């Protein structure tokens, strides 16, 4: 149409300006800043890749990476695993599907901060829900947020928070499988557990892949739970909280930016690897 160019530019401009100012420019600037040693806002000296070499000898970043990977393991096994099991179960029950959908999904709408505070109360040593229950049945109280157990204690709300999300994704994928697939299977005598393993799961494999990538890259953004429940202490430091401490608390922008770049590269690598490992023929029906 005549005069389209004007509209193309006009309509794209606000979004382009906002995103350039608050996403693209800052991202490039972070990469640039990661090559400097900074103190506060004003002084910075170019140090090349010093910040990156420093990362290799930084014990904290190794610990933070390992903690992030540990949470990732729990997320893959328990979050994605439970979500899949729950979705299979709900897909096969006769009534109450809507009820379980609603109940399983609702933690998602609650902020991580509120859930963290809830778990502060659940884990509390003196009166918390868990120790209250233990005391009631005559057991010893347990220090849930201890030096050795904190990371696992934090993984619980992290996993719990998003199970419902993946559950709904799986359930939606399952509802798209045409019923003649199941009818054919029934004629072959394939039902129950076998049906799940040989039919349902292979048919939703591409959705499982999407969920795994979402779960893995999502773990790199974990912040709220670790920050509110433990402030990154007691062996719970993850990449997000460590970056926050270095860049914002210590105002060490250069090193903080290097950690941020590391998080991005790590995330891209992990999604590429996941994609490769799960490469399979896409199922279309």
């Amino acid at each position, binding site marked *: 149409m005549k005069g389209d160019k004007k509209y193309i530019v006009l309509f*794209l401009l606000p979004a382009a300006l906002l995103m350039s100012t608050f996403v693209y420019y800052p991202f490039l600037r*972070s990469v640039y800043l990661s090559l400097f040693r900074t103190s506060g806002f004003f002084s910075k000296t170019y140090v090349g890749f010093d910040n990156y070499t420093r990362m290799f000898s930084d014990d904290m970043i190794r610990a933070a990476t390992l903690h992030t990977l540990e949470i990732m393991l729990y997320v893959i096994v328990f979050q994605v695993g439970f979500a899949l099991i729950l979705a299979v179960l709900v897909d096969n029950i006769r009534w109450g599907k809507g009820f379980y959908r609603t109940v399983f999904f609702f933690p998602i709408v609650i902020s991580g901060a509120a859930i963290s505070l809830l778990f502060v109360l659940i884990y509390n040593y003196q009166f918390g829900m868990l120790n209250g229950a233990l005391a009631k049945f005559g057991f010893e109280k347990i220090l849930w947020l201890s030096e050795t157990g904190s990371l696992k204690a934090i993984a619980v709300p992290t996993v719990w928070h998003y199970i419902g999300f993946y559950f709904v994704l799986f359930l939606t994928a399952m509802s798209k499988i045409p019923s003649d697939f199941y009818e054919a299977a*029934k004629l072959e005598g394939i039902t129950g557990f076998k049906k799940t393993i040989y039919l349902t799961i292979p048919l939703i494999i591409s959705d499982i892949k999407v969920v795994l990538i979402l779960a893995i890259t999502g773990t790199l953004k974990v912040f709220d739970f670790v920050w509110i429940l433990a402030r990154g202490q007691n062996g719970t430091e993850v990449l997000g909280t460590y970056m926050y401490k270095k860049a914002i608390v210590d105002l060490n922008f250069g090193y903080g930016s290097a950690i941020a770049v590391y998080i991005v590269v790590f995330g891209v690598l992990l999604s590429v690897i996941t994609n490769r490992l799960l490469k399979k023929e896409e199922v279309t029906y």
Partner: protein
Amino acid sequence: MQQSQAEAPLSYSAPRRRRRVETGQVISYAVLTLWALTTIYPLFWIVNNSFKLSTDVMNNSFSLAASFDMTNYINAFDRINILKSYGNSLIMSFGTVALVLIFGGLAAYIIARFHFRGKSIINSILVATLLIPAFATVVPVYDLLIRWKLVNTYWGLILPHTAGNLTFAILVIAAYMSTIPKEMEEAAFIDGCNRFNMFTRVFLPMSRPVFASASIFVFLWSYNDLFSALIFVNKDSVRPIVSLLNEISSQYGTDFGLMASAVSLTVIPVLIVYLFIQRFIEKGMTEGAIKG
């Protein structure tokens, strides 16, 4: 399921199989209900405790609240001014939603319905943007906001949140708009619509469902984001509810009743709204995930 009934006359083993299916169903319901309890009971526990005095919470957190004691709620409103944070949260999140829908809608319209050079590049850039987390932009954005004197103002959170959510919104809305039939556009053109009127009179009304689900998603994302809030809006007068919760956990960590009432006050309104618009939320979130 119905399968076993339909098959019953054909097969001798039907009664036994039917019983097996029944036990399967019973186990399914047991597992599902158990999981449902893990999501319902903690909330019940915290709301219940919010109506007790802190000493009663400590003595027996499982007993039912004997009466609706409002002390904790009065404290939440008086001592930590939870209402102010609520207001801040709503202003900033609704502001973000409005800007994302307007600017995202305009850009999505172009990407969905126009052919021009560089379009495929723009598409690739948009998808790649999804891989940039807030960690990788926070320092320069903070620097910018300080220079523009926007730190600790509502704009200080609205602008970065808007920019951060535009990618998702543009991708989802454009995907929806590209399914609108071309005939609609042609008819409007013959009726004398220019491009702008076509956007406001044809594409906006027809894309209402995707705008609804995108706005819910953007709202939740903005409302629940602690990381940016801690950095860009940390003063009492502007901080949103998530920062306040963070503050409570460090400042009032021993006032159990107050903590319980703060969590209840944050969670209950969201839950009530959720029950009403649940369908849109699930749709928006799942669509966003698949597209992303």
